[in-house]
């Protein structure tokens, strides 16, 4: 619980709000340059790595809530749990020091992608009858069904085709951003001298 408290400073709360907007803003870039990627969890991974697993999980969960509330992708809330796990995983990889070099960051992305694909599939299969309401991915699911897989495994197969690559690119972008981040800002997250934090946890033991 102490870890949980420590992650939610005024600065990190402000960062979470910005990160959700980054998710939505960055998510339109691949579409406008014509790349078949989502890249809609950059903010979530960033918060996970910079602040910690709790904050990452919260960012993912709220990001999908906001997708729903704004009507951009109303069914997003069904996957809010998966988004939360993506954020928590980012926090774990950050704590383990995997974001220090690019190849381990990439590996973390691949692992996250596989986990996301496996966790998302049952939601598509059992809540939405085996589809996601997106023409492109649903066509791939149909192809797997035609190849003889059942509803659950068709969705797992579709997910493992797109999610690991998507999260690999996401993690590499986050790694590059971390490299470029000014030292002054990075110091805010190192956990030692954060003025805002003292005030937000008055009941410190």
């Amino acid at each position, binding site marked *: 619980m102490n870890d949980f408290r420590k992650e939610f400073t005024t600065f990190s709360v*402000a960062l979470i*709000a910005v990160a959700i*907007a980054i998710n939505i*803003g960055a998510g339109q*870039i691949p579409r406008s340059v014509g790349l078949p990627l989502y890249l809609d969890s950059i903010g979530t991974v960033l918060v996970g790595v910079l602040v910690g697993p709790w904050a990452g999980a919260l960012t993912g969960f709220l990001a999908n809530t906001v997708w729903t*509330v704004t009507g951009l992708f109303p*069914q997003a809330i069904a996957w809010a749990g998966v988004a939360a796990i993506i954020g928590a995983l980012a926090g774990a990889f950050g704590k383990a020091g995997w974001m220090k070099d690019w190849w381990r960051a990439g590996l973390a992305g691949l692992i996250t992608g596989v986990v996301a694909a496996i966790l998302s599939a049952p939601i598509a299969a059992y809540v939405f009858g085996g589809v996601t309401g997106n023409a492109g991915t649903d066509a791939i699911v149909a192809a797997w069904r035609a190849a003889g897989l059942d509803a659950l495994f068709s969705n797992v197969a579709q997910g493992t085709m797109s999610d690991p690559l998507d999260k690999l*690119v996401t993690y590499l972008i986050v790694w590059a*951003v971390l490299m470029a*981040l000014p030292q002054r800002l990075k110091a805010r997250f190192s956990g030692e001298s954060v003025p805002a934090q003292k005030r937000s946890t008055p009941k410190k033991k």
Partner: protein
Amino acid sequence: MRGSTLFVPGQTVIHHLHPVTKLVITFLCLVLAGTLPSLPWLLTCFVVLLLPLAAIGRILRPFLLRSFAVIAPFVISLSVIQGFFTPGQTPLFHLGSFIFTFEGWLAGLTVAARILLALGGALLLMLSTRPDRLMLALTERGMPGSLAYVVLTAIQIFPRFQERAQVIQEAQQARGLEIHVNIFRRLGLLVPLMGPLVLSSIMDTEERAMALEARAFSRPGRKTSLLLLEDSVWQRIARWTIMVAALGLIVLSFWLKFAR
């Protein structure tokens, strides 16, 4: 409130309902969508319960348009996938060795109707409720204020981030960045496009945090709000009745499924 949401302003009874009352109706729709047994039941519920409420709230047009925009791709995908891949007795037509069955089609439409009913409940809430009022109502019931801040801020600032992404892309193109290249070179484009967007946003955060601190954001204790939420006895009774009915439905459907 600025920002891009589904909310349609209005002065109707539906708009003036307490946000939690509407949230409870949304919950009821979700439960109905999950427990009702067949297509006619689901569609009847949508027509008898949701459409009149949307009509009273004078949001029938956006309600139907939004519902249709979301449900149409589901109807198509589900019809194709369930129609071809669910075994049944009544073949309608076939495509190569794949047979499109009536039973499969019906199963697909039933799932689509479930999604429609759940979606309709959520749309009714979001079209008729200002997000800040909903958040205030949840904060009054114990949700941390910082959660309300995050959701409301994200809703307000994301259109500016979309604009910013567009501006960065145009600026880089003006400097000679070529967008129409082969797919592998396009991956390289992500660096000059994502980098400035994400970095500048993180820089913004510091300013936001200072502005928040200057307004005693992290001060513990109760805060007062400029907004006032109206509530009434009959709404409280209605909320409890609906909650009990919804929970009853869940119990009943489990009993029908497993006890027999």
